[in-house]
């Protein structure tokens, strides 16, 4: 991380904090909030996919796992949702570690296949969870209602509760800042993780696994660490999603959302610090245009991913970086940069 990254982060933070007061329509606030939620998931996914180089597609399964953990606890145990969030996070970590263990001896495309299968299994399990199935007769013999809500989804388990605190007009603000808080934690966490010693082990395994193990890096240990570390906030994001909408459904682990989030990852720039945020932002805006076309939306996203893979494999973040590097080679830019640095130095050296 360089100084310019910190500055950019501070600016974005200020803009995001002031955004609801800029008189934007409510549905844009709602979209921004969803953007924060997705960006959180994508940033954690980037840790697994981009930094550790493991082609896991399980991130949405973990997201849905968190959402359902929180929703089910709210519904059946009558918990307020706030205390369910850390529980959902922890449950997601355990779930993710199991997935990590299952993938331990696989590489590349096989990890993608297995994790996709896990997501699809989860999708089908929820979809086919109908009233009075054998399972529900055991869990809920008296009323025999569907445990997960099945294809209809599950509601009636509570929300963040900002409506009671802030009133009917401003509750969205509460949700907005809660989600923003989660995203900030996620971005700081991933940046710190990537710079840390653990992050170096991830990158070593990504770049050359054989060499990494020969230098003392344990595949077993760091693969489990990355699956565990990336799951907590992903699962929390799921729980926050559930708390915001007040309902969950099998679409959380469906193909459309998977494609949408993977597009964010690819468009933003896999493995890049700013990739997830850029990707989430661009795709959310683009989606506004795609929305009209319903069925064509997924095809459109597919084409976007394809084009990026071929022409901009480093994503927008990578493209910006290489443009900056090229600019720095221009003598005029170099001179300006030197003068700026000089001026800064003089100012900080001067007594005030």
């Amino acid at each position: 991380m360089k100084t310019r990254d910190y500055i950019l982060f501070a600016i974005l933070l200020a803009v995001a904090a002031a955004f609801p007061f800029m008189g934007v329509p409510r549905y844009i606030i709602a979209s921004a909030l969803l953007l924060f939620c997705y960006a959180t998931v994508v940033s954690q996914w980037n840790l697994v996919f981009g930094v550790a180089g493991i082609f896991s597609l399980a991130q949405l399964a973990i997201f849905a796992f968190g959402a359902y953990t929180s929703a089910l606890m709210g519904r059946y145990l009558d918990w307020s949702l706030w205390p369910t969030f850390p529980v959902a996070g922890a449950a997601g970590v355990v779930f993710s570690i199991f997935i990590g263990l299952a993938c331990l001896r696989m590489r590349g495309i096989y990890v993608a296949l297995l994790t996709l299968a896990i997501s699809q299994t989860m999708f089908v399990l929820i979809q086919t969870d109908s009233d009075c199935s054998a399972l529900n007769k055991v869990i809920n013999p008296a009323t025999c209602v569907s445990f997960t809500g099945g294809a209809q989804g599950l509601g009636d388990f509570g929300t963040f509760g900002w409506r009671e605190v802030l009133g009917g007009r401003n509750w969205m603000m509460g949700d907005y800042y809660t989600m923003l808080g989660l995203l900030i934690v996620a971005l700081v966490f991933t940046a710190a993780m990537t710079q840390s010693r653990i992050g170096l082990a991830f990158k070593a395994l990504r770049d050359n696994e054989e060499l990494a193990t020969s230098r003392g890096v344990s595949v077993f240990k760091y693969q489990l660490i990355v699956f565990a570390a990336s799951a907590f906030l992903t699962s929390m994001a799921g729980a926050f999603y559930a708390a915001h909408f007040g309902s969950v459904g099998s679409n959380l682990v469906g193909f459309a959302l998977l494609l949408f989030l993977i597009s964010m990852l690819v468009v933003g720039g896999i493995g890049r610090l700013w990739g997830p945020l850029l990707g989430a932002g661009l795709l959310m805006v683009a989606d506004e245009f795609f929305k009209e076309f319903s069925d064509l939306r997924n095809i459109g996203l597919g084409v976007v991913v394809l084009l990026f893979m071929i022409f901009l494999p480093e994503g927008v973040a990578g493209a910006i970086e290489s443009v900056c590097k090229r600019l720095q080679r221009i003598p005029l830019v170099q001179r300006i940069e030197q003068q700026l640095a000089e001026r800064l130095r003089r100012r900080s050296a001067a007594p005030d």
Partner: protein
Amino acid sequence: MVSGESTPLLACRNIFKYFGALVAVNDFDLDVHVGDVVGIGGPNGAGKTTFLDVISGINPATSGEIKLQGRDISKLRPDLICHRGMARTFQLNAGFDSLTIRENVLIGSAFGLGDRGVPAVTFSRAMRERVDRALELCRLTERADAVARDVPVLERKLLMLASAVATEPKLLLVDEPVGGLNPHEVDDVMEIVDGLAAEGMTIILIEHVMRFLLQISSRVVIMHHGEKIYEGDTEGLLSDRRVVEVYLGEGTADRLQHMLADRAGANG
């Protein structure tokens, strides 16, 4: 060797490595003592690299006993073998391509000496000092901030060596350190490896460039079809009929003999 009576640093007994019906390493024994520089030569496909893969745990032996400092390592994972004090380089120019040279070496330094429990978030001072030392020994200090993907072949080889050196190995395995380099670069690498030996590192190296192998090794082993056909000093090697027949050829043997004689003359 004076240290011949003590426990060898590395003791290999009856090593076999099969790939299906193919015997890549056939009943191979080797003792390496502290301070040795053992050069392994032999024709392509003789099983030299496979032997390094076997002892470094990358591709475990089918059977046989491998002891490092008297402790069995034949069933250990490569990362644990590295923690015990054995580090290797690879024939292909392996590196962590997206990272800088310094980060590449830092990986060896941060994880190569042991890595129990959940690692700390930051890098200790000792780790950074090991990196500086390894970069210096391998003459990469000035290039530390270059990205591995972009550096030329000599630096890639040195980078791999430096990341191994940063694990502070008791035994360093070097696989073809000068393959593909020009004569000038070969001399540079020779000086560097000599420097490492002078630091007290025990070294096993594989090389096809016989000039390099003979000048740097205190003992030479020649492999053929997975078996050891010669083990001994360099003078004996050049007059060994089987080695000359199988590997060197008369012309090369003569040329190397002259080279060694010249060198002995220059030194004497």
